C-alpha cells in the first residue's frame, strides 16, 4: 500500500504540492493525471525518496520513506520521466548493476534479463552503450532494469512516452498482470485513453492540490455521464 498523508513541498517560496493525501491499495493500477507543472513529478519524486519531504509522511508497504529509506526503496521499482541513466554503460552492464543493487541472484537475473530484454526487443543491443540507444530503447532498458527485482510497487513517470506500439502493449499487459497479483502500479501519464483503458483508480492534481480522487465510474458519475475523460480533465483543470 502507498500511503501519502498531508504532504507539502516548497521550492524557493513557491508551493509545488500542498497538504496532499491519498492512499493506493494493493492490487490497483493508479493513474496520476494533471497538466504540466501541476505537481505530478514532484509527488512521484517524494514517493521514491528523490526529494525530501518538508511536511507530512509517505509510507510504502508500511515503511516510511524518510525513516526507513532503504527498506522502502527496496519495495519500489521506479521509471523516471527522463531516461538519462548512466549513458556510458552498456545495456548489459546497466542491468547487471541494477541487479546487484537489488540483490538479484545470478541464476535468476540471467533468466529475467533474457526475458525482459527479449520482450522489449532490446536483447541484441545489450552489448552496446546506452548512449547509442534511441529514446524508446533507453526507456525500455530502464523498464527492464526496474522489473528485474520484481518490486511490489511500480512507480512509473510517463512510462509509455517514446515506446513503439508493440512495447507499449507489452508494458500495459505487464502492468495489468502485476496488479492482478496483488501489487501496485502507480503511474503518471498525459494519455487519457490509457487511463480509461487501464486504471482502477485515478487522481487528478492541479496547482499542487488533488482535484479528484476515485475510481473511473465515480468520476463519470460525478460529471455528466456522456462526457468523455478529456472533457472531465479539461473541466477540472481549467482554473490553471
Amino acid at each position: 500500500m502507498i500511503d501519502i498523508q498531508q504532504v507539502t513541498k516548497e521550492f524557493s517560496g513557491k508551493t509545488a504540492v500542498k497538504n496532499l493525501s491519498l492512499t493506493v491499495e494493493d492490487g490497483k493500477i493508479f493513474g496520476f493525471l494533471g497538466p504540466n507543472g501541476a505537481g505530478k513529478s514532484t509527488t512521484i519524486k517524494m514517493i521514491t525518496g528523490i526529494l525530501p519531504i518538508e511536511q507530512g509522511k509517505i509510507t510504502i508497504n508500511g515503511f516510511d520513506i524518510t525513516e526507513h529509506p532503504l527498506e522502502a526503496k527496496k519495495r519500489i521499482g521506479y521509471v523516471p520521466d527522463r531516461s538519462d541513466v548512466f549513458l556510458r554503460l552498456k545495456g548489459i552492464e546497466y542491468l547487471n548493476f541494477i541487479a546487484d543493487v537489488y540483490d538479484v541472484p545470478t541464476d535468476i537475473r540471467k533468466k529475467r534479463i533474457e526475458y525482459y530484454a527479449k520482450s522489449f526487443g532490446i536483447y541484441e543491443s545489450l552489448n552496446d552503450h546506452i548512449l547509442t540507444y534511441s529514446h524508446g530503447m533507453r526507456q525500455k532498458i530502464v523498464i527492464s532494469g526496474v522489473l528485474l527485482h520484481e518490486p511490489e510497487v511500480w512507480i512509473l513517470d510517463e512510462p509509455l512516452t517514446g515506446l513503439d506500439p508493440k512495447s507499449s502493449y507489452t508494458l500495459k499487459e505487464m502492468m495489468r498482470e502485476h496488479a492482478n497479483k496483488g501489487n501496485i502500479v502507480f503511474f503518471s501519464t498525459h494519455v487519457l485513453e490509457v487511463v480509461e483503458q487501464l486504471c482502477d483508480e485515478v487522481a487528478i492534481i492541479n496547482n499542487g492540490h488533488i482535484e479528484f480522487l476515485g475510481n473511473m465510474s465515480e468520476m463519470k458519475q460525478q460529471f455528466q455521464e456522456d462526457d468523455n475523460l478529456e472533457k472531465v480533465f479539461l473541466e477540472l483543470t481549467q482554473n490553471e
Partner: protein
Amino acid sequence: MNKTWKLVRTIVKMQFSLAGKSTSEQIGYAFLFIFAIPFSIFIFYAIDGIVGGLYNILEPAGNESFILGLLFISMFVVLILVSVGSILSSFYFAEDIESFLSLPYHPFQIMLGKSAVPFITLYVTNAAVLAPGLIVFGMHSGSGVLYYIYALILWTVTPVLPFVLTAIIVMYGMRFLNLSKNKDRMKIFAGLFTFIFIIGINIVLRMNNSSTDAGEDLACLIEEQNGLLNTITTFFPTAYLHSITLTDPVSARGFLFLVLSLIIIACAFVLYLTAGQKLYFKGVLGLSGGSKKKFDEEKITKKIKQSNVLFISWVREMRTIFRTPTFFTQIIVQSLVFPVLFIVVILFDSNGGDFSISSLGSMVEEIEPKRFILAMTGFTVFALGINPASISSISRDGKSWFNHLYMPIKAETVIMSKVWAAFCINLLTLLVIGAVAFIFANIPIGIGVIWFGMSLIINWITSVAGTTLDLYTPNLQWTDEREVFKGRLIGILALIIEVVVFGSIILFLWNVDWLEGLWMTSSILTAAFILLSFVCHLILKKVIRTHYYSIHQ
C-alpha cells in the same frame, strides 16, 4: 545575412552566457581574469627579451623584418594548432549540433554560427602572443602612429587565415571519416594531441636557459640560414606581406602590401564559405547514428554475475571516466601531465640545474633523511592536490545524479565508490612519480617504501577532501561535460586547503629540533596523516548528511 547574424549571435550568447552558472563559477571566472594580469606581464617581458635580443642583432644589417616574419609565421602555426581541437569540438562533437541541422539554414550559415566561438577564442592566443610582440617591435623600432594603426588591422585579421585553412582541411577530412563509429575515439585523440603539445612546448622551452639567450640563438640561426627563411616565407605569403607592411609603413609599398594582405584574406574567407556550403553537412550528417555490431550471446551471458554493490559502483565510476572523452582527457590525461612534466624537468634540465639527474642524485646523498622525506611528502601533496578526479566526483553525474537517490543504496556506499575511483586514478600519478624517482634519482629502497606508504595515505585524504568539497558545492546543471571543469573555483580551493593543511604539518616538523631521523619523522607524519584522514571522514559524513539529498533540487 541578417538571419546568419542572428544565428551567430544566439550561439555566442549561449556559449558565453553566465545564466544558470553558480556564483562560485562566476567567482572562478573573476579569479581567472585576475590571475591573467601577472601572467600577461610575464609574457610581455619574455617576448620583450626575445624580440629585443633579435632586434639588436638583426637591425644593423637591416634584417629586422625577419622578426615580424618569424612572429607571423609562428603565430600562424600556433593558431592552426589551437584551432584544430576547437573546430572539431564545435563543428562536429558539440551536443547541440543536431538541433541546428533541422533549422532552415544553408550549411555555410550553420558553419559560420559554429565558427564564432572557436574563432573568438583564438583572440586569447592572439592577444597573449602577437599583440605584445607587435607592441615590443614598435617600441624597439621607434615607429610612429601609422605602424600601430597597421599593426592593429593586421592583428585583427591574423587569426582569419589559419582558422579558415584549418577549418577547410578539417571539413574535407571529416567528409571521408566514418565519424559515427569513432566519435569518442576522435575526441580522445584530440585531448591527447593537446597533452603532447603542452609537453612538447615544455621540452622546447627547457632546452633554452633564458629568453634573451633564446633570442640571440635564434638570431644567429637566421643569419646563418637566410635562404631557408626566405623559402619558409614563400609558403606563408601573408607573413611576408604583413612584415613588409609593418617594417615600412609610411611608404606606398607598405600600404599596397596591407591592401594585398586584406584582399588575400577576403578571398580565403569566400573560399571558406564555399567549402562550408559544399562540405560541412557531408561530414556532420549521420553523426548520431549508431553502429551495428555483431551480437554475441555468449559474451552477454558471461557478463551476468553478482558483485558487491560498492565494487560494482566503483566499476561504474571507472567506466564512466574512461569512456567519456572529456573525463578521460581532463582526469586521466591531466593526472599524467604533472608526473610527465616532472620527467621532462629531470631529463631535459641538461645544464646541471637544481632538478637535473646528477644534482638530484647528490641531493639524496647530502640532505638529511628527515628533511628529505618531508620534502618528498610536500611534493606528493602538490602532485595529488591538482588532480581533478576527486573534485569532479559528484559533478560528473550531472542531471542524472537523482538515479542514486531512488535506489536502495546507502549514501555512504555511493560516495565511497567515488572516493575509491579518485584514489585509484591518483595511484597512477604516484606510480609514475615513484618509478621516475627510483630509476633516475637513485632513491634508497627504505625511503622509497616509506614515501610510497605515506603517499597512499595522502592520496586517500586528498580523495576524501576533494569529494567532500564537490559534494558541498557541485555543478550538476551542465549540458556539456567540459563545464564540470571549466571556470570552477573548486580545483584551486582544494589545492589551497591541502597545501595549507599539509604545509603547516610539514613546516612544523621541518623546524622542530627534537625530531630527527627517518623513522621518527615518518612515524609522526603517518600518525598526523591518519588523524587528518579521520577528521576528513568526519567532515565527509556530515556533508553527506546535509547535502546528499538536497544538491539536485
